[in-house]
């Protein structure tokens, strides 16, 4: 308990005690003149100075001094600062947020046990009026329970929690903790961060400061010099065009510890069967690759797994992947009936040597083209031929509208390239060819490298289109909806894309037969043609593995079978999780998504694919394997709230109700009343003393 004053400056008023002292030492002259019959005798008495006086009327003097002291004390607003009063004002109830890291790294040996033990100790320390919320976090955070003081509920929440394969991100957890604490009406706020302080989880966010007054404490469950070796990735290569059933797996192993690992046994499993094993050495803080001999895989989606042994963090010791069957893109080349076979040579050969995907090229002429020829095709190349008329033309248009790809290669037989009426506006106008023979031909000088088609060529050494010389090309006026992707050096259009319905139509204005240009003999020709085929066929390479935490759009661009139409949205998809759980994803009209919560293989089945389910491999985020710890003070210093005591003092005033404030400051009332009582007594006493003193004849008093 301490005694203080709200307005200590008023204590200077104690100097006013000198006033009654002076009054009682000196004899104040009355304002009224005292009439006296004769000063004959008074005149004869020698004058005395005040210094020779002494205090008169001790009781009156003491009363006056006490009145001054009490008044000064009352105005100084004394405070009786007792801990009990403060507690009563602020209360002792705490809002505790226990931030429990359950990222993949918490699966390292012993960490999770230590973390849960620390959380339970914190729960045991809760008072009856305290509330706690357990926030489980990895790359995202969730409150596992409503704020409660029920220790049993909190403990069961801790017991039910398990490390997830997700990576660590402190930001969402701290944001959630801040939200919870800010919303709390309890007077004390505390946050307990239980984590292994992985450096990869903290990007130094400056705006994640806990609410003022929050007491932040941490529990570091990490170990010094933790050694972790992880299987961080793999790539699968088909053996080639001869044996498409063989694949070569290249695994990547990372050593994220400070100690080199020798004789690390790495095994390759296909369909849960170990098919190969190698022993490698991985340097400290380094990585190594391991290439396994080609293995045969069935012509379906096959589960593969890289596995290493003897590690403290088992979740990243396995790398799961899927070996997808080779994909083939059916392409139909439709040429002019009068075209020679050599004119198609470069294009056909370029497409035939492609793999991943491979292209199944069929060739026909416009004369023989039937509507049925378009069935099952991904791309139709209208090679130097007029657009088919009649039903076939309509079928081709519909093919494009339904999502197919159309590449129109303009040549000498194209003529005016009369489009169907419904496409004439969108596909634009083809004019007569332009010769560039006099200047050694033109070049393609403007490419839209941000377009998906040319994106692979945008990197250094990605392909040199400027080597190709273009001696003749059609002047092409794109349609209203067309996008020009490439232009010649004179500004003429080289390649334009026009969306038609769900499909894509492209117009190449200079032929692909080494006559109007020499592009087919340039190195960039092959990848360019392949890229055209992939783009027009909407080919997307299926990832061999996903990262846990990713969300897969089962109906959209992340369709599980890119070479096939997306999953029938009306079908129910049954998902079998790596842990063996099953759940159904109902068709609901919107894009259906699947969040990969576990690591391992997800199996997706529909009624049609019940026997050959879609396999999705999910692995922990490789960055989570880096156990390099963060200095806890770096994190806590960045997020710690303003000084808790300072804030608590500031909150005290704000938290006190007016009644409590009055109670704290009520002392001055009592003192003031005492002062008034003393003053009344002084008045009575002074009056009594004064009444006993004759002042003079009434007639002389004024």
């Amino acid at each position, binding site marked *: 308990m301490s005694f203080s004053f709200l307005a200590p400056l008023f204590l200077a008023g104690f100097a006013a005690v000198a006033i009654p002292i002076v009054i009682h030492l*000196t*004899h*104040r*002259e*009355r304002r*009224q*003149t*005292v*009439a*006296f*019959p*004769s*000063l*004959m*005798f*008074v*005149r*004869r*008495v020698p004058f*005395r100075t*005040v210094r*020779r*006086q002494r205090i*008169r009327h001790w009781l009156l003097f003491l009363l006056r001094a006490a009145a001054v002291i009490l008044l000064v004390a009352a105005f100084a607003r004394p405070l009786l600062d007792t801990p009990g009063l403060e507690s009563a004002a602020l209360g002792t109830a705490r809002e505790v947020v226990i931030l429990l890291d359950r990222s993949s790294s918490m699966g390292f040996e012993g960490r999770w046990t230590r973390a849960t033990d620390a959380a339970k100790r914190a729960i045991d320390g809760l008072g009856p009026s305290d509330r706690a919320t357990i926030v489980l976090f990895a790359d995202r955070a969730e409150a596992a329970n409503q704020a409660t003081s029920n220790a049993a509920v909190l403990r069961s929440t801790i017991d039910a929690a398990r490390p997830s394969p997700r990576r660590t991100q402190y930001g969402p957890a701290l944001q959630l903790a801040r939200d919870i604490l800010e919303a709390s009406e309890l007077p004390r706020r505390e946050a307990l961060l239980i984590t292994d302080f992985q450096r990869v989880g903290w990007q130094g966010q400056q705006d994640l400061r806990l609410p003022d007054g929050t007491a932040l404490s941490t529990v570091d469950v990490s170990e010094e010099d933790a050694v972790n070796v992880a299987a961080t990735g793999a790539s699968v290569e088909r053996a080639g065009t001869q044996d498409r059933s063989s694949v070569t797996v290249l695994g990547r192993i990372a050593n994220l510890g400070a100690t080199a690992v020798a004789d690390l046994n790495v095994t390759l499993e296909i369909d849960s069967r170990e098919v190969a094993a190698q022993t490698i050495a991985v340097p400290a803080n380094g990585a190594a690759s391991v290439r396994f001999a080609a293995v045969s895989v069935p012509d379906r989606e096959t589960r593969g797994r890289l596995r290493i042994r003897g590690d403290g963090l088992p979740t990243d010791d396995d790398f799961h992947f899927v070996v997808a069957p080779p994909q083939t893109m059916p392409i139909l080349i439709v040429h002019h009936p009068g075209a020679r076979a050599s004119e198609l040579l470069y294009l056909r050969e370029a497409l035939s040597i492609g793999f991943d995907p491979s292209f199944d090229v069929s060739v026909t002429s416009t004369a023989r083209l039937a509507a049925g020829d378009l069935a099952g095709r991904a791309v139709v190349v209208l090679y130097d031929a007029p657009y088919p008329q009649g039903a076939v033309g309509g079928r081709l248009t519909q093919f494009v509208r339904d999502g197919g790809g159309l590449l129109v290669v303009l040549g000498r037989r194209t003529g005016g390239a009369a489009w169907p009426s419904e496409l004439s506006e969108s596909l634009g106008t083809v004019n007569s060819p332009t010769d560039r023979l006099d200047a050694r031909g033109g070049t393609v000088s403007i490419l839209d490298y941000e377009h998906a088609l040319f994106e692979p060529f945008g990197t250094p050494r990605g392909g040199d289109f400027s080597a190709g010389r273009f001696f003749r090309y059609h002047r092409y006026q794109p349609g209203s909806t067309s996008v020009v992707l490439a232009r010649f050096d004179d500004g003429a259009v080289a390649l334009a894309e026009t969306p038609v319905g769900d499909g894509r139509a492209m117009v190449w204005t200079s032929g692909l037969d080494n006559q109007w240009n020499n592009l087919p003999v340039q190195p960039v020709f092959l990848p360019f043609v392949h890229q055209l085929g992939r783009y027009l066929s909407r080919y997307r390479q299926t990832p061999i593995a996903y990262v846990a935490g990713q969300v897969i759009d089962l109906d959209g661009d992340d369709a599980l079978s890119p070479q096939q139409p997306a999953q029938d949205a009306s079908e129910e998809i049954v998902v079998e999780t790596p842990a063996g759980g099953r759940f159904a994803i109902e068709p609901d009209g919107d894009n259906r998504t699947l969040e990969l919560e576990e690591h391992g293989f997800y199996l997706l089945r529909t009624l049609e694919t019940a026997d050959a389910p879609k396999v999705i491999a999910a692995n922990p985020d490789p960055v989570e394997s880096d156990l390099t710890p963060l200095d806890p003070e770096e994190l806590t210093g960045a997020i710690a709230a303003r000084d808790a005591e300072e804030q608590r003092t500031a909150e005290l005033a704000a938290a006190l109700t007016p009644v409590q404030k009055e109670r704290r400051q009520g002392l001055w009332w009592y003192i003031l009343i005492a002062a008034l009582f003393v003053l009344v007594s002084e008045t009575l006493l002074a009056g009594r*003393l*004064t009444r*006993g*003193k*004759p*002042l*003079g*004849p*009434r*007639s*002389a008093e004024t």
Partner: protein
Amino acid sequence: MSTTRFLDPHVLARINSLDLLARTVVDGFINGLHHSPYFGLSVDFAEHRPYMPGDDIRRVDWRVFGRTDRFYVKEFEADTNANFSVLFDVSASMGYSSHGVSKLDYGRFLAACLAYFSRQQRDRVGIVTFSDDVIDYVPCSAKHLEIVLHTIDRLEARGRGSFEAPLLKVAEILRRRSILLVISDLYEDPATIVRALDRLRHKGNDVIVFHVLDPAEVEFPFDEAAQFEDLETGERMPVVPETLREEYGALLAAHRQSLIDLMAQHQLDYHFFDTSAPLDYALFEYLSRRERMSRVR
């Protein structure tokens, strides 16, 4: 109800009529004494003395001349009614009062009572009021009681006090020997006072001095420092009463003692009155002393 209750100066101050007041006091007082032996009848024979040139021949006792053939003059105790004159100091200082009855009031009571008393004795009564000069003069006469009372009634304290000049003038005015009652607070040098009074006594007057003071003048009970103003001169002085109370008392006591001594030497009858003392007590004190002195005489 005891009549002495009315002799309290405070009570008497409530009586507006001095006539009534004097009658109340004197009658009650006389009733208490039953008999007044001091003044008596003044026609009693005292002695014979030889005729001296200048004596009124009407006073020659012819019977004695017939028997002895010598002229003798008859002497009476009082050959006629005595003159009783009040010399009233009405200077401003007499107006002082600390408890309701001023010295002027107190003197007024005394003067009225004694005038009435004297008139009861068939004396002639008169009054002279003075401050630094004679203000009112009422010659002694058997018919002047009312005038005397009226004069006493309208007395006002004013002016500076002095003894020399007014009493000298009084000595010249008074032709007959009289009983002179001087009522004053005697703020004057004792020697000066006595000198002035002695001049009256030498002319055959019987001088009685009533020294009237207020209790506050005696005790000086003031406590707080203040400007003290002299009622007569208007002079002001800063006074710290506490510091000079003792010395003031000593000076006053010395003053009174000086008056007592000097007046005793000059056969002046001196009486001190405190205005808080009952009036009958004052009268009794006075008459008792007069009786003792007359016997001695």
